């Protein structure tokens, strides 16, 4: 008995539960609402889950991980295929218990696989990089699988939450519209507004640093402007700059200016006393000190502002489009499609915004890594 239980202690509970769950998925005699898999499919699924889980109880090598990946994804595909295509008929209890036990089994197997990949510590840098990438990707994919299966299996109305497949279908079908909206909102309002807001905040910070009275005069004003509510600013900007993207870029400029100003000012003060005294002993001029000491020392702060502002800019541009806009743009699309109850299109826009925002943020992070490699938080 002890020998049988031994593998459970070293993280063996998950594969053990997976085996239990897959057997619970078998239809009971006379249970018509249970799993709709053919005997062959159910047999194959059971065999692969049991073999993979049993392997995980003993070891966590490439073979076990590969088999775990194949079995969990094949199982997920079978289960998704088993779901009804349309909405569940009214009054339907949804999928039977056999289906949910099979889902739990496949999900536990996937969990074990990710857990074992995380436990690997490959020596080769490429393998380590692959493992580091695989974990978040597997995590994200399984989030989508569970989302899909739960929404469709429980018959959640698509107005509340559409399935990822429905959102994906919308993304594919409406590519032209989505691209036009992306170009209008992201490539014009967001990028132009972000660049102008960050650029002017940076330049004004240099000016404020040189002219001390500005610090007392300008900072409170800047603080005030940044505290203005966007729903008040956006209509005013539409009156000033018209319906098209420049008014949205202006909102973005107002939102991003102040974070950059404050961060750059803090960064310019970041150089230590001794480092400045050193410049003084070299009889360095103001410009030389700025260029060779204070600006490099300020870069971590500047990049912080660039990253904060990348998110602010996207939010600002989308929300600003709720207040008067031509008939294109991500914010415009979201506000009109919500009105038409076309929630899958709203989600498609959200997906585009999330992807664009993440890539934008990631790109700034990459440049930051190159520029501030020396900062303690970046050293390796």
């Amino acid at each position, binding site marked *: 008995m002890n020998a049988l239980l031994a593998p459970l202690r070293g993280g063996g509970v998950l594969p053990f539960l997976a085996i239990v769950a897959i057997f619970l998925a078998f239809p009971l005699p006379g249970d018509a609402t249970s799993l709709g898999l053919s005997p062959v499919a159910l047999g194959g699924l059971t065999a692969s889950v049991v073999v993979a889980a049993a392997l995980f109880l003993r070891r966590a090598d490439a073979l076990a991980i590969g088999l775990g990946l194949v079995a969990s994804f094949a199982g997920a595909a079978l289960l998704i295929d088993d779901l009804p295509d349309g909405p569940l008929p009214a009054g339907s209890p949804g999928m039977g218990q056999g289906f949910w036990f099979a889902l739990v089994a496949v999900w536990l197997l996937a969990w074990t696989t990710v857990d074992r990949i995380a436990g690997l510590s490959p020596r080769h840098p490429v393998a380590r990089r692959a493992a580091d990438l695989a974990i978040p990707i597997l995590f994200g994919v399984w989030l989508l699988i569970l989302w899909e299966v739960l929404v469709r299996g429980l018959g959640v109305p698509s107005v509340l939450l559409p399935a990822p497949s429905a959102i994906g279908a919308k993304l594919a079908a409406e590519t032209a519209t989505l691209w036009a909206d992306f170009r209008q909102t992201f490539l014009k309002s967001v990028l132009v507004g972000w660049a102008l807001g960050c650029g002017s905040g940076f330049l004004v910070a240099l000016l404020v640093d040189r002219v001390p009275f500005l610090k007392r005069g300008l900072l409170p004003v800047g603080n005030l402007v940044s505290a203005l509510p966007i729903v008040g600013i956006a209509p005013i900007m539409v009156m000033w700059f018209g319906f098209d993207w420049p008014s949205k870029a202006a909102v973005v400029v107002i939102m991003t200016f102040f974070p950059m100003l404050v961060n750059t000012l803090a960064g310019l003060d970041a150089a*230590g006393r*001794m*480092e400045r*005294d*050193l*410049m*003084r*002993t*070299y*009889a*360095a001029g103001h410009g*030389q000190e700025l260029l*060779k*000491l204070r600006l*490099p020392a300020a870069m971590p702060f500047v990049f912080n502002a660039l990253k904060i502002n990348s998110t602010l800019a996207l939010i600002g541009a989308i929300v600003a489009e709720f207040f008067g806009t031509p008939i294109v743009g991500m914010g415009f699309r979201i506000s009109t499609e919500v009105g038409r109850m076309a929630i899958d299109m709203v989600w498609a826009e959200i997906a585009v915004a999330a992807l664009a925002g993440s890539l934008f943020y990631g790109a700034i992070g990459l440049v930051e890594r190159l520029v*501030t*490699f*020396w*900062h*303690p938080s970046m*050293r390796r």
Partner: protein
Amino acid sequence: MTEARSSTRPSVIDARGLSLTFTTADGPVHALSNVDLTIEKGDFVSFIGPSGCGKTTLLRVIADLERQTAGTITVNGTSPEKARLDRAYGYVFQAPALYPWRSIASNVALPLEIMGLPKAERLRRVQKNLALVNLAGFEKKFPWQLSGGMQQRASIARALAVEPDLLLMDEPFGALDEIVRDHLNEQLLQLWAKTEKTVVFVTHSIPEAVYLSTKIVVMSPRPGRIHDIVESDLPRGPRPLDIRETPEFLKIAHRVREGLRAGHSYAD
């Protein structure tokens, strides 16, 4: 202890009645009070005293990092400001103060860039001075990849790269362990003998001051002033570390210690 060695060499630093009072929220702080001091060319002078005796302040006044509130001081016969603008001295701080975004070579080249020297000359001086402090081969490393002792040596190379006749050092080895400190002291003395620079060195270690110096300025706090000036009769030039066990050495160390004790006693 031979006060007889009269000044045949020109004086590099000349302070008369030098005082500096900081105004703080708690009232005035007399950092320096009525300091008279002459430092001659080629001297190795140490300022020693407890914290708050104004030794660092005096060094900073010489470097034009602080201004005196009374009295006069000349550096190389001119005002400290003129001397600073002429880049007449190299300054070594308590910490290496290397810029982390610059490699070691580029840190040493920093003052040379500011002076506007051509690239070939910068390169030559960087190579030469890194070799002088035994850091050849570390050009491409970044400061945070080196040990504390190596970083401080790089900062000395940076001060030397300016090729000043005067080297001002503010407790440069204070943060290092004793073994590294001994080693760097020995190297510094060899360097000084080789280059015939004038060195002003702030420390609170008696052995360090006596081992290195031709002249030891004993200072006392509240207000910061010079209590005693001890001329060392140990041989000039490189000295073996063993010299610290000789009776001559101990005699000087004894006098410095007595001076420190006397300068301190009234305050307690």
